[in-house]
């Protein structure tokens, strides 16, 4: 479903990604792990059209999307949930969720998706009229994921969903992701620590100084 | 045990604790000496006039750079300080009979007061609201000066016939361009040196940079935000007011026109083209804009249009100003 081959990405003249390649099949939950600052977020952003790619190739849903920007990719179902959440602070929870369904493709499913999000997170339903600025870290993360779901994704790229979350919430959050995956959503996930992902993921990529390598299934247990 | 006023900072070499100060100052004053000699050789009094303005502007722009570029406070009331300096100095020498040099110095005190007056409400505001508020003060000043007619501010006509500079008993008329060249060069250089080499390379400068880069963190390590922001306003206003005083005695006229848009725009453009918070960017900006503006003079009524084009193109091509250009080159050896 997603195929990344040998991409290179830069911040001005700082080379972040070195010939990174990875592959996600339909229905999989694939994780990318690695120390901080090694380019996990950059990889996801590059895939989702939020950061330009200098060379290499990205194919999503049988199309070359290397130079496509985020709005187009979102319309194709490739949606990014940022580690720093990127909510609209002066809008309400509801407005943030509605904006997730900004594009026509998602607008059609808006009602259904909203119900889905609210059933996942009843807390958000309670707080639908609160401004996102004043949400706590956990609530904000729920809105971020919810907004991603509102875009009606076929592949959801989630960047460190557990960042700054309390242990119990981390667990719920990851369980939600796992559940979504089991319901058929393809997920590409970035995490710091694999311990939390035990038993959920199909495959793992490790990123080190911008170089990506696949950890084969045998080694996976070890890494975990 | 180290003495109370100074921690032992010798372990870390830094421009904020005097690294390279002597060397850089020597270079600076050598350049000034060069300019002083150049002034004598140049000969054309129109050129000298242009340079006199450049030197006065340098003070204004350096002060503005201090508060906007270094301290990161969006203050747009710079010409308010300038105006008060000009009026204050003019009125002191007209009505109180101060000798102009003394009244220019007294303008510094007036500047300090105005700096505090504008700082107090501004410090309650954040970010761009400071910009908007201070600019609003700028806008409201001409009508206030008009009301100041009652206290001898001359209303819309302004003050005409301000006494010329008196240097050791010699009257320096505004057509004595060479003497004015040296006087304004010296005063300008002194102010610029004080701003960039003493204030900004000392504790105050470090505090400004700290507040600009990370204000909460700065407070957490003991920077008294209120005190240093107030100081930023005051120091900036003091020097700008001195510049206003020099201007008033040079042209021997002050009118509310100095608050007009063209003057303000020019100042902004100098800062933009030079680059903020990167000495000597802003100073270069002054030279470039004033000289460029003169070069465009032969285009008469096309001049301001072309100036606009130059500004737009420069900002787009060099978003960090001329200073940014040097930075990039020095990073890529």
């Amino acid at each position, binding site marked *: 479903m997603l195929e990344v081959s040998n991409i290179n990405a830069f911040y001005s003249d700082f080379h972040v990604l070195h010939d990174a390649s990875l592959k996600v099949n339909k229905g999989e939950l694939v994780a990318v792990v690695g120390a901080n600052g090694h380019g996990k977020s950059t990889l996801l952003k590059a895939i989702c059209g939020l950061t330009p790619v200098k060379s290499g190739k990205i194919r999503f849903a049988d199309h070359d999307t290397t130079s496509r*920007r985020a709005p187009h990719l979102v319309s194709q179902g490739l949606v990014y949930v940022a580690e720093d959440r990127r909510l609209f602070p002066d809008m309400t929870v509801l407005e943030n969720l509605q*904006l997730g369904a*900004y594009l026509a493709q998602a607008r059609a499913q808006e009602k259904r998706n909203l119900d889905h999000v609210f059933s996942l997170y009843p807390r958000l339903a309670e707080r639908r009229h609160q401004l996102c600025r004043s949400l706590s870290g956990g609530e904000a993360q729920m809105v971020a994921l919810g907004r991603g779901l509102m875009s009606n994704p076929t592949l959801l790229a989630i960047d460190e969903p557990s960042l700054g979350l309390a242990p119990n919430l981390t667990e719920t959050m990851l369980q939600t992701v796992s559940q979504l995956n089991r319901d058929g959503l393809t997920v590409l996930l970035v995490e710091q620590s694999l311990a939390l992902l035990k038993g959920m993921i199909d495959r793992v990529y490790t990123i080190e100084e911008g170089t990506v390598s696949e950890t084969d299934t045998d080694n996976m247990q070890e890494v975990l | 045990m180290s003495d109370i006023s100074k921690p032992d900072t010798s372990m870390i070499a830094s421009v904020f604790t005097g690294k390279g100060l002597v060397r850089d100052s020597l270079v600076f004053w050598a350049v000034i000496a060069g300019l002083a000699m150049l002034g004598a050789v140049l000969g054309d009094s129109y050129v000298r006039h242009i340079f006199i303005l450049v030197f006065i502007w340098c003070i204004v722009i350096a002060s503005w750079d201090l508060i906007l570029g270094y301290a990161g406070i969006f203050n747009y009331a710079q010409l308010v300080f300038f105006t008060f300096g000009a009026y204050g100095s003019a009125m002191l020498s007209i009505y109180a009979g101060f000798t102009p040099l003394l009244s220019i110095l007294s303008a510094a005190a007036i500047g300090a007061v105005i700096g505090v007056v504008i700082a107090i409400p501004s410090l309650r505001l954040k970010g761009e609201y400071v910009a908007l508020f201070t600019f*609003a003060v700028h806008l409201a000043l001409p009508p206030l000066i008009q009301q100041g007619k009652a206290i001898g501010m001359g209303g819309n006509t302004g003050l005409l016939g301000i006494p010329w500079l008196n240097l050791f008993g010699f009257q320096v008329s505004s057509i004595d361009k060479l003497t004015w060249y040296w006087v304004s060069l010296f005063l300008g250089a002194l102010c610029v040196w004080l701003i960039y080499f003493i204030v900004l390379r000392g504790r105050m400068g470090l505090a400004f940079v700290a507040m600009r880069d990370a204000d909460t963190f700065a407070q957490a390590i003991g920077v008294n935000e209120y005190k240093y922001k107030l100081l930023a306003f005051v120091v900036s206003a003091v020097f700008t007011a001195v510049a206003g005083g020099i201007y008033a005695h040079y042209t021997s006229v002050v009118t509310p026109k100095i608050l007009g848009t063209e003057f303000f725009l020019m100042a*902004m453009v100098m800062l933009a083209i030079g680059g903020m918070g990167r000495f000597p960017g802003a100073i270069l900006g002054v030279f470039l804009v004033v000289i460029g503006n003169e070069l465009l003079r032969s285009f008469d009524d096309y001049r*301001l249009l072309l100036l606009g084009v130059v*500004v737009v193109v420069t*900002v787009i091509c060099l978003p960090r100003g001329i200073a940014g250009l040097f930075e990039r080159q020095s990073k890529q050896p």
Partner: protein
Amino acid sequence: MTQIFEILLSGITQGAVYCVVAVGLSLVYGASRILNFAHGSLYSLGGFLAWYLVAGGFDLPLWMAVLIILPVLALTGIGIERVIIRPLRGSDNWKINTIMVTLGLAFIIENGLQLVFGPGTRTIAPFVEGTLELGGITLSWYKVWIFAISLMLVGALEYFLGHTRYGQAVRAVSQDMQGANQVGINVNQVFSFTFALSVVLTGIAGILLAPVFLVSPLGGWAPFLKAFVIVVLGGLGSTKGAFVAAFILAVLEAFVIFYIGPSWAMPAWLVMLIVVLMVRPKGLFGVWEN
């Protein structure tokens, strides 16, 4: 009593005049946090174009002139955004840089206008003449129309920003550009659109107010500066704020002129501004924290 009422009414109609100028400025600030210093020049541009079509070069009826001018202004806005605003958006001190380029643009437009149309002052005839008697108070129909139009403009804008998806997108972009990108909003397009819209609004103001303020190359500065104070008082990014502030300040002005003297109008504005900002550092309806 009638007199107080008359002054109140004059303040309100004048508020509408200010409002028309201020909404465009507020909109572009609200949507992209660009303080457009060329606002006044674009205002003059609108006025001059209308004058040229109605009186200067052709003899078109005003409505036809407006129909021609609006797309021209929209294209101008798109062009400006493309050519001089967009390249700056990535730079770290873009807020100051945009102020600078729009200043440069102001130089270009106003001196361009002077070169093309000459430095003189122009006017166009108001599209409605005559007056309306209201309990002993005479009100010009023109002012009534401006009032209605400004109400309509602000109402439409408020509805657009608050209740349409595209309006939501405009606000979203102003709050978090990357976030907006992530949900599929074409950020560049939104910026172009809002800039174009603000230029159109400004141009409409220039046309509407040509009979009031006249048209001259530098004539846009005075209304711009007033609009500026209004936008600050109303709170950045709030069209509603600009609307309310325009009326507050205009009514204040009317009473100050009548009871204290016209020279005190601007100082009164400043005092008002200081008081409001001290109590509410974000202006009356400002939304941003920093």
